[in-house]
């Protein structure tokens, strides 16, 4: 393309500086970089303890180009609620308040803080970057770890076959709180993600976006494959892209033909122990979930 000025499908401005310590190929760092493009400079970010907090702010350095605050693992939503109220008191409601919190910081330990934030109706964009385990402390399972995934606390053996619980359906739980804008997204679909963050930003009241973020060391694949793994999650139906606006459900992406889940599973070390029967069981779960989502679409 030599000679032509590059045209960009997403905003050019970078609000996450390089030099951060996230692993090469980190899906969560990519998620933050993309979301910040949609949030813009006039934003205050709150982050819970976890990979993103640790890798972006090795004291006395920070990768953030916007005001940023970290307090603890469990209370990002409570801190964001306070920041939002303070801005209201100062008559500075033009400022966007956003949270980046991991799956552990969202579906487990930060759950009640988030529930309270939703209940009180704070005008906050809450983004859960879901790498499906407690990565910062060495890949312990969380409520968002998918069935059969091996983690350091759910190792695969003869009796335990990896994670034995369903993945907690956090977006649905947020819909049930009456949150006006809820969406799922994946780093493999940046334009879809950015559009959703823009909508969340425009929402009056709380908005919740749950972003699947593949993690090379935690899931066990090569750092170059992060986007491909995300695409496979979406194309197999293991991860579904949708939004729920004022209670109304809409798929935002429909794979032309759903690929077998095996194509996603066999690429990752955390699923290497699966037998054919277990893969079939996961396929059945995905098929059932997809039918349910198709029903929701039809009801619209």
């Amino acid at each position, binding site marked *: 393309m030599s000679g032509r*000025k*590059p045209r960009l499908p997403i905003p050019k401005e970078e609000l*996450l500086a*390089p030099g*951060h310590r996230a692993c*090469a190929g980190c899906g969560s760092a*990519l998620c933050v970089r993309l979301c910040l493009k949609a949030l813009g400079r006039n934003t205050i970010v709150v982050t819970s303890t976890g990979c993103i907090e640790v890798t972006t702010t*090795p004291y006395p*350095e920070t990768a953030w180009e916007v005001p940023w605050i970290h307090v603890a693992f469990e209370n990002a939503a409570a801190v964001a609620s306070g920041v939002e109220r303070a801005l209201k008191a100062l008559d500075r409601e033009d400022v966007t308040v956003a949270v980046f919190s991991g799956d552990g910081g969202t579906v487990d330990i930060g759950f009640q803080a988030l529930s309270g934030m939703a209940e009180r109706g704070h005008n906050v964009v809450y983004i859960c970057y879901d790498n499906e385990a407690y990565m910062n402390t060495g890949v312990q399972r969380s409520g968002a770890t998918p069935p059969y995934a091996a983690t350091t606390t759910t190792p695969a053996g003869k009796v335990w076959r990896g994670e034995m619980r369903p993945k907690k359906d956090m977006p649905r739980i947020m819909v049930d709180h009456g949150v006006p804008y809820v969406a799922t997204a994946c780093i493999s679909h940046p334009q879809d993600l950015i559009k959703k963050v823009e909508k969340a930003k425009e929402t009056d009241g709380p908005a919740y976006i749950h972003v699947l973020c593949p993690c090379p060391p935690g899931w066990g694949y090569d750092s170059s494959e992060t986007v491909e793994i995300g695409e496979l999650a979406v194309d197999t139906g293991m991860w579904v892209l949708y939004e729920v606006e004022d209670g109304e459900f809409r798929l935002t992406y429909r794979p032309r033909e759903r690929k077998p889940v095996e194509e996603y599973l066999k690429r990752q070390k955390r699923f290497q122990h699966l037998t054919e029967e277990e893969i079939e069981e996961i396929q059945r779960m995905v098929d059932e979930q997809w039918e349910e989502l198709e029903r929701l679409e039809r009801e619209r």
Partner: protein
Amino acid sequence: MSEMEYTIGAVIKEPGSTRRNKTGRWRVFRPVLDEDKCVGCARCFMFCPDGCVRPAEDAFKIDYEYCKGCGICAKVCPVDAIEMVLEEEME
């Protein structure tokens, strides 16, 4: 050990100061972009977790000061315009 000055509340006053940390040192493989092959789709720019692919006047340029060599840009390029080359093999 050098002495570090601590701020109250661990406040960091310089936005984007991780730029002091040149993560290009981490790299084993170097992404080399062939501008003649490139069709300008911007996928490498979109997907770099470190924001190291930048649009310049007439092409995309890779910032080797910070590029960690993850290989995502090469993998997502639809026309194989980016090649991962072992650092030792670069002259």
